[in-house]
């Protein structure tokens, strides 16, 4: 049976590990003076900086992810802003994954601070899953003494994730066929991951008012509520079937940045940032050994207007310079057509790039006129050198206009790159 199918195995067992207030705890781990204090990990420490991750102590005051620093100070005057260090969170992520893989080699990272272990094949090795969970917690503590995690155990990965939400911090909950309704009785619909206000409205419209009613609803009723197969997936999730255990290959890769006031004022800085974004995509494409056949660019302005475009390539592209040429060509076309001096105005708030439509490097055919085989090999070697000796040891001349414009940022979602890119772990 492939990993992309619905599995209804009565012996299935999953364990979900969710690190508590991960970024903030990492900071408190490294800087003991921050422990026990309300802190907020921010990108910058100006008044309007958004808090990416509040510590457990700050959460007690009501500080939430995404809150502006000056708003947070109103409810928690002692909150201390801390600049994020993405490389450090990636390093600790790798440590935790190594611990999990030592127990179950199939442990999969679901995000920078979450992982899932399919223990179905290990039931005889670990007859007591709760005991295993306690070992994992101890191992994490031994490596990073301030970090705690909530662990959920259940017959599928979704319910095990719900298990982590039931007890925080440092929780350990097992959801079984026998006790599921007992746990669900304590929850609202919106407590279920994936059910927000809009989905709650849909469910209430057809008479489902709480998680127990949702679990007991027929697949047909849930299909009606969600308007199709999504409803069936919800039926499976809440009835112990595994549908979230698929491994999805990259369909697209994206990178973007929100600009600082300083960056907004300079067209050159924005263009340097564009080069850095292209370079970041190149690095990811090289690491995944793929070329792309399509790139999208988007730019958003402070007045909520935006502009985007999509370019399809006839010849697959991997080089940052090629991606940049296509993007800049399209930008110039747009500027000329609309008689604009530049699209990078001082009203620019955010811009980014998405590459998609991938083709494996080994299937790229070479062209009649420009044989880029040598450049492609050189690019691979370049990234090997960066991996072995550090990312700043060697750079392409095209990326050195102002490489510091792109501040490292952490992706909450995909962490596939962390496993392949050693230099993402560098400071």
């Amino acid at each position, binding site marked *: 049976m492939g990993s992309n199918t619905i599995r209804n195995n009565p012996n299935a067992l999953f364990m979900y590990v969710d690190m508590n207030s991960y970024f903030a705890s990492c900071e408190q781990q490294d800087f003991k003076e921050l422990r026990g204090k309300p802190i907020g990990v921010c990108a910058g420490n100006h008044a309007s900086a958004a808090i990416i991750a509040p510590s457990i102590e700050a959460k007690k005051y009501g500080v939430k992810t995404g809150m502006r620093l000056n708003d947070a100070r109103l409810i928690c005057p002692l909150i201390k802003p801390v600049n994020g260090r993405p490389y450090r969170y990636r390093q600790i992520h790798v440590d935790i994954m190594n611990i999990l893989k030592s127990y179950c080699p199939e442990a999969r990272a679901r995000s920078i601070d979450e992982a899932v272990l399919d223990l179905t094949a290990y039931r005889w090795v670990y007859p007591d899953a709760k005991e295993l969970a306690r070992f994992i917690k101890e191992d994490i503590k031994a490596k990073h003494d301030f970090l705690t995690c909530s662990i959920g155990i259940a017959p599928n990965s979704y319910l095990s994730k719900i298990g982590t939400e039931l007890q925080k911090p440092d929780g350990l909950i097992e959801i079984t066929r026998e006790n599921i309704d007992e746990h669900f009785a304590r929850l609202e619909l919106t407590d279920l991951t994936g059910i927000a206000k809009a989905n709650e409205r849909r469910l209430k419209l057809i008479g489902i008012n709480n998680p127990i009613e949702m679990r007991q609803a027929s697949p047909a009723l849930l299909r009606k509520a969600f308007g199709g197969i999504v409803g069936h997936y919800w039926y499976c999730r809440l009835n112990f079937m595994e549908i979230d255990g698929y491994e999805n290959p990259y369909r697209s890769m994206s990178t973007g940045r929100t600009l600082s006031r300083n960056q907004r004022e300079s067209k050159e800085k924005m263009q340097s940032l564009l080069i850095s974004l292209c370079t970041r995509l190149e690095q990811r494409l090289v690491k995944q050994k793929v070329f792309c056949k399509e790139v999208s660019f988007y730019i958003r302005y402070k007045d909520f207007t935006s502009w985007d475009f999509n370019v399809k390539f*006839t010849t697959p592209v991997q080089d940052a310079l090629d991606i940049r040429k296509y993007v800049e*060509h399209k930008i110039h076309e747009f500027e000329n057509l609309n008689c604009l001096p530049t699209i990078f105005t001082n009203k620019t708030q955010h811009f980014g790039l998405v590459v998609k439509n991938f083709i*494996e490097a080994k299937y790229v055919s070479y*062209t*009649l006129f420009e044989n880029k085989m040598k450049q492609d090999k050189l690019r691979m070697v370049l990234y090997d050198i960066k991996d072995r000796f550090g990312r700043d040891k060697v750079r392409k001349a095209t990326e050195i206009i102002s490489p510091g414009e792109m501040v490292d940022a952490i992706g909450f979602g995909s962490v596939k790159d962390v496993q392949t890119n050693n230099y993402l772990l560098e400071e």
Partner: protein
Amino acid sequence: MRFIVTSTSLLKSLQHISGVISSNTVLSVLEDFLFELQGNTLTLTASDLETMMRVKMEVNEANGDGRICIPSKILMEYLKNLPEQPMTFNINEQDLSIEMSSSVGKYKIGGEKADDFPKEPAPSDTTNFTMSSIALIESINKTLFAVSNDSLRPAMTGVYFEMNENSLTFVATDAHRLVQFQRKDVSCPTTGGFVVPKKPLQQLKGTLPSDDSQLELSYNNSHLFVSNNHLSLSCRLIDARFPDYKAVIPIDNPYKLTINRADFMSALRRVGIFANKTTNQVVLDINGNSLQLSAQDIDFSYEGKESLSCQYNGEDMKIAFNSKLMVEMVNNMQGSELQLDLSTPTRAGIFRQVEQDENEDVLMLLMPLMVGI
């Protein structure tokens, strides 16, 4: 200005030139047809600033010469929904009002000033030659499919016309394949070449008569002009150097494979269905006089194999090509048999027609896919 014209003949003439009008234009006048009446001759013009196309037609009861721009979209829609009948145009050039009356009703639209319409480029310092309409259509058909859409390589987004004293050669490439089509029945006064964009060639292909009527072709540094008795087209040439295509045509491809064209194409189409959708890779496994086509898509566990007999003179080899590109090329060839000249699995294969018309010579080149064989 007033004239009477049959609705269907006007629609037909407008359809000849309407393809020139671009869907998103900056100037509103570029969404219009220019109507020019002189005596009983009505000249209709469409332009997108790069290409200008003009068609002439005779009208009845013409009264007063004049010029006006009429919005194309509404006029075409109206004509398409009107059964064949005479219709009268009453045009007031002062207030730019146009009244169209037919037996069933009266319709009014507003036009734009004719003077705002772009001027046709002056055909100065041109070199002229003639060729038959059917020969130009055939040349376009044989090459246009291989033109690239890559805006960063502008030279490849058009067809290269290469003039020689005894021949005219048309070349198109998208960097993965190349088509060279030579007409030996056209003589040009000078040697040289220019690149014509895709759009005007598409227009010519759709509007020129498929007969032996002669066309006047003239060109200068910036424009190409094509005309016959009632139709004329001028277009801006692509201002970029066409790649040195002769350097990439292998001169020594010693292994020759001859095969029935129709059988090869249909087998290729069938096997191609089972190929990976990203690469469309089909492997040609040549073993003596037997050719096996195979394709697979590992992601979906698809696999296809088919064997054909062929005449082969060379070492046994396996070579892979993009089936979609190959089908397009074989489809644009003629004759019952084709010849594939090969050397190694990593070098381009040359496709030729076995039976060539004495006045033409077709050569198509395709780069192989290099791995997974």
